[in-house]
């Protein structure tokens, strides 16, 4: 798998995603600068955590207009895998690639802690290596991670089996404890927790690796199709 890690000027988990894919997964990752209009020949895109353009306005509100996001939208529309982590999730929501919004945490404070996530679906290229109901230990680190959407959208997410992960103990007041969701086509996933921080025994958990392993498997099975 060749994953393109998008680098906004304020991305600060870009190296972590790069390291998880290259060193923990033994896949391939490269950086893509935010003013690129071309993603090259990547098989998957990762929008990492951080503060894209400072995010003093609303997280991701400016990033959605960046040149690279136009390319990411096209990539997603063509069926490419796009994973947004934390700030990346916020950007995907702002860009309209995923529904809903991410609001200030319930207690209005930044929260950094390891949380437990329940795997809600394995029917996606990001979760196929997991088992439904499997509990993962993965860290969160965000100030604006409270997932919000209207009831109709939430109902739809649930009936379409598009909730990827839920918090076992809801840390931030997210609607229906949602931690990660898929788009309708299931090739775009956003999640607030950081799977790239849970890929190495020295970090206390390797539960996040399954997300990247799933992506790797998906791109391997996908590649021959593209080649034809």
């Amino acid at each position, binding site marked *: 798998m060749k994953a393109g890690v998008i680098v906004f000027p304020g991305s600060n988990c870009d190296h972590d995603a790069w390291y998880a894919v290259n060193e923990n997964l033994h896949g391939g990752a490269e950086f893509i600068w935010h003013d690129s209009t071309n993603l090259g020949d990547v098989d998957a895109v990762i929008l990492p955590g951080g503060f894209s353009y400072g995010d003093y306005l609303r997280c991701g509100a400016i990033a959605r207009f960046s040149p690279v996001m136009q390319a990411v939208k096209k990539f997603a529309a063509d069926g490419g895998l796009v994973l947004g982590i934390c700030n990346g999730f916020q950007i995907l929501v702002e860009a309209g690639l995923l529904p809903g919004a991410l609001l200030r945490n319930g207690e209005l404070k930044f929260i950094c802690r390891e949380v437990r996530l329940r795997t809600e679906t394995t029917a996606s290229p990001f979760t196929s290596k997991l088992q439904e109901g499997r509990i993962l230990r993965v860290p969160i680190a965000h100030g604006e991670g409270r997932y919000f959407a209207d009831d109709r959208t939430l109902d739809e997410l649930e009936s379409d089996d598009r909730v990827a992960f839920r918090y076992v103990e809801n840390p931030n007041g997210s609607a229906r404890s949602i931690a990660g969701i898929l788009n309708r086509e299931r090739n775009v996933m956003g999640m607030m927790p950081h799977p*790239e921080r849970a890929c190495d025994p020295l970090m206390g958990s390797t539960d996040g690796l399954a997300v990247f392993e799933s992506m790797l498997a998906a791109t391997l099975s996908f590649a021959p199709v593209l080649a034809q």
Partner: protein
Amino acid sequence: MTITPELIEQHQLTTAEYDKIVTLLGREPSYTELGIFSVMWSEHCSYKSSRIHLKKLPTTGKYVVQGPGENAGIIGIGGGWVIAFKIESHNHPSYIEPFQGAATGVGGILRDIFTMGARPIAVMDSLRFGPIAGASESAHNRRIVAGVVSGIAHYGNCFGVPTVGGECIFEDCYSANPLVNVFALGVCKENEIFFARASGIGNPVIYVGAKTGRDGIHGASMASAEFTEESKQKRPNVQVGDPFLEKLLLEACIEAMKTGAIVAIQDMGAAGLTSSSCEMGSRGGVGIDIDLDLVPQRETGMTAYEMLLSESQERMLLVAERGREEEVFRVFRKWGLDAVTIGIVTPDGNLRVRHLGQVVAEIPNPALADEAPRYNRPHDVKPHRRPPLDRPANLPQSTDLSADLLRLVAAPDLCSKRWIWEQYDYMVRTNTIVGPGSDAAVVRIKETDTSIAMSLDGNGRYCYLDPREGAKLAVAECCRNLATTGAVPVAATNNLNFGNPERPEIMAQLVEAVEGIAEACAFFETPITGGNVSLYNETLGEGIYPTPVLGVIGLMKTAMPAPVQFAREGADLLLLGGFGECDDRRFGATEYAKVILGQLWGLPPQLDMDYEKRVHDAIRALIGAGLIESAHDLSDGGLAVALSECCTSDIGAKVTIPPTERTDLALFGEAPSRILITVTDAGRAREIAAKYGVACPAIGATMKGRLQIGDDSQMLIDVRTSDLKQAFETSLPRLLQAQHD
């Protein structure tokens, strides 16, 4: 403008200092020049009261690549990699404007690190506040706590550096003088270190980063005076931080350094453009000629005085190789930052400043940087202290030690600081092997198989009772924290927080503490490679406890250390170092005396440095032998509190202590040189301890659900681990929540 005695006084210069300025210049200074001298000769920038004593500190050692005198100290960690680290205070601004004061404190120390070419990979904070429980004044303190913590979080989280540890203590004396000391550590290759030494006559001097505004003017002088009722009016002296801009500056600087076109670089911290210019010039033995008209400005109509003294954040000054400016500019353009040539390196050794076509200041660089006054301030008196030496009569005897213990673990000093550290991203960069809430933080260096262990410690109560011994105890505790994770301490940084040095009894505290640090750092082979002095921590004549804060770093092979918490039931529990000595006098410095008895008296715990070091060697040997299942060093609150901290999972312990008349001293005395361990093989563990001449009594075993401590005849303490955990974890949020009631 004519220089009047009033103007000189406003600039916090004495008549003698002013006369020295006239002598150095050979003429009267201009108003602008007076401003420049006032900041460069301020206590904050010149260390004029402390410098002669700081010379007593050990600064060299086999790991030291760069000692004090640069923006940060540097030590080698092998394989061609080095670590840059330092601690710095932002006490005064954090009192006036807690959020921005603390935020820019983080920003300042981060720049000190990446100025050296090192990417910051860890931050820790040592915080001191006034009491947060009860009375009306505490509402103000709670606001300061909330502001400081969110300020640190705001800056560090956005910048992308993990805040991996620290300490936080509450005392009356910090009510109007909170302390915010920020430690930062970065990593780079040894052959990619940058220094702040200008060189190459004719080389361009380039300004990069944020535009200059009127914020922070005279911040350095503000930090060099006591606070009065009028200090609130100094709020405009506090700068405003922009962590996103700092992140851009970091990336741009590191990238620009890789071009090879940069000769020297220095951040604009205290005294901004002035100090960065004259210090780079002075270190390189050259002159710097700058034109203020070229400086990127955020506001119009700024005077030369304002521009030179502005402490606008997120700015750097660098010297590039002539002809290669464009290589530098290209990088900064990529990151959307200003980069402008504002001057040139000259041969004459002067700082020359032009504004609107006129030379507005011309001062020999050494006059500013090296000729600042140095005072051997009177200190031939006993260090200031009020508490009695002996235990006050008629103190109540405890009737319920279990209740005392639950109160202690819920006390602000001892309770879990989770409410604070969960607001910090302590994992970003995926290097944090051990984060906040442990004895020492451990951060791996991915490019090597080495990890860095680090610990901050300072105990104002100990130092108030005996500055020399208190300072030694802080060094010892840091080294013990590191040893408990298996690391070898290699170097240190210190932040000396004291009151008004013009009072001999305060100066005596400073001198005693520095000498104590010097003795202990020499003994533990942890040379001081840099640091910070913060004086005048007084409000309306009331000073803080003398509070030297030590930051010690150690090296270890990358591995997951044993946890603090008990790992399983039925494990043998040993007290490496033994029960220690405590008497009534030494009990007066303890948290028990503070929290349960509401008193302070006597002397700090007695430290035998030789024994302490053997305890460190012993624990490292035990870890090396693979015997350790959990390890936690004893400190504030003594044996009973340390045991409680090991019980925060569901596993407790049954502990037996030797019979004694004074169970309070045995349970809550704070004798150093002790580490609680659970081991796989108690016999072998005790053999190893014996080889180092260290006592290692078996004191019990772990068990599920309860902490029971008794002697042969009776049960002294019997509490559920769930109650301990509840008291420990819920206390701080509950106390701080009162803010909203």
